[in-house]
């Protein structure tokens, strides 16, 4: 009767810790209502202030901007 015991595999090279991913985290894209038109912007984060939620991005004028979240 043959044994069903798994045969241990030969030890391989030690596993090295994985380096952090070189690609930046995927930016979330949201659609906001800006200057009377819809605009798709890549946001860097979200901030809750008071009873509002804002999305953060760099606006066309180069300023760090927090826009009221469409959600």
């Amino acid at each position: 009767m043959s044994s069903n015991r798994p045969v241990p595999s030969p030890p391989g090279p030690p596993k090295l810790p994985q380096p952090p991913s070189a690609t930046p985290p995927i930016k979330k894209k949201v659609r906001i209502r800006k200057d009377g038109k819809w605009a798709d912007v890549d946001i860097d984060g979200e901030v809750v202030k008071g009873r509002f939620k804002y999305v953060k991005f760099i606006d066309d004028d180069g300023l760090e901007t927090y826009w009221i979240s469409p959600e």
Partner: protein
Amino acid sequence: MPFNTGMAYNIYGMDLITFTPTNWYCQSNTSASDYGKCYNTSAGEKARFVQTDTTTWPIDPTTGDSFPCAKDGTCIRYTSTAFNRTLATVFSYPNKQAIVYRMVLRSHTSLPGISDPSPVKLLGVAVYNAVQDYQYTFVSGVHTYESITYPYYDPVFNYKIYYKPYSIPAGSVVVIRWLGNVFTSILYFGAYENGQNNIWYAAIGQVYWFYESSPISVIPLNYEKDYIMYQELRGAFGFSINGVDQPGWNADDMIRVLRELFPNRAWAVFDDRQYTLYLYNLTPDYVPDWLIDKLSPTAMKVLKAPSDASVAKYWLDELNRRNGYNQTPVETV
């Protein structure tokens, strides 16, 4: 919105929440061993004590004021008497007008106050406008021949007065509530001392007003040192003691003037057309929730991130203090 609502607390020697009503007082009995002491004043806010005798209690340039409560930091002492003493400018709106519509006042004083038959002993704290048409309207006009019982309601000026609603160890308490309309471009908070010496008082005054919706500057300023001396500021926007309700005509002008005069301070400008709050030496982390709820900005834009966190923190702490909020300040690194 066509109008904004402004609100300011003026606090002298009382706690905003509890008013420390029954155990708060200063000692103005000159025979008492603790004469000149004040008790249970809230930290940071000081009562007022008029004592002109600088021979017995001199003020030394190096050691400071020797008068007991001034020495231990529980009062601000005046060494000259006054009939009308302006304690603060609540707002000053060049070229604009506001409508004062509500006022709540509570004052504790060493004098008998408005129920005393002798008008010489009358003392009150009130709001009044520039031309003083309405000066002390809220506390005077009640003479013994008109009314001898309290609470008292004056249907003409539409105010209600409670005199001495409870006992304090010395002096009297006056509580006044008023709802009406006063048009003015400047409003002061002041005390009617009537030239009396050896008196003290503490008060909380809460004033509400409307003003035309406008871009506003958000920067806590000292009226005498930061505002009145700069024509540029007075041309760009009004002053308010709460540091928030400071309307101007044009947000761009306000930003330009503030950049020029206060490049190293934190400030904000709210554009009420774009509903954008511009932040200078600030980030949204430092903007208190109550300000966001009041202004409801669609966007916040950082004109300049704070190079020194203490500058932004001062702005936040001072706004909270002036508007009666005690939010936990953000951590500084």
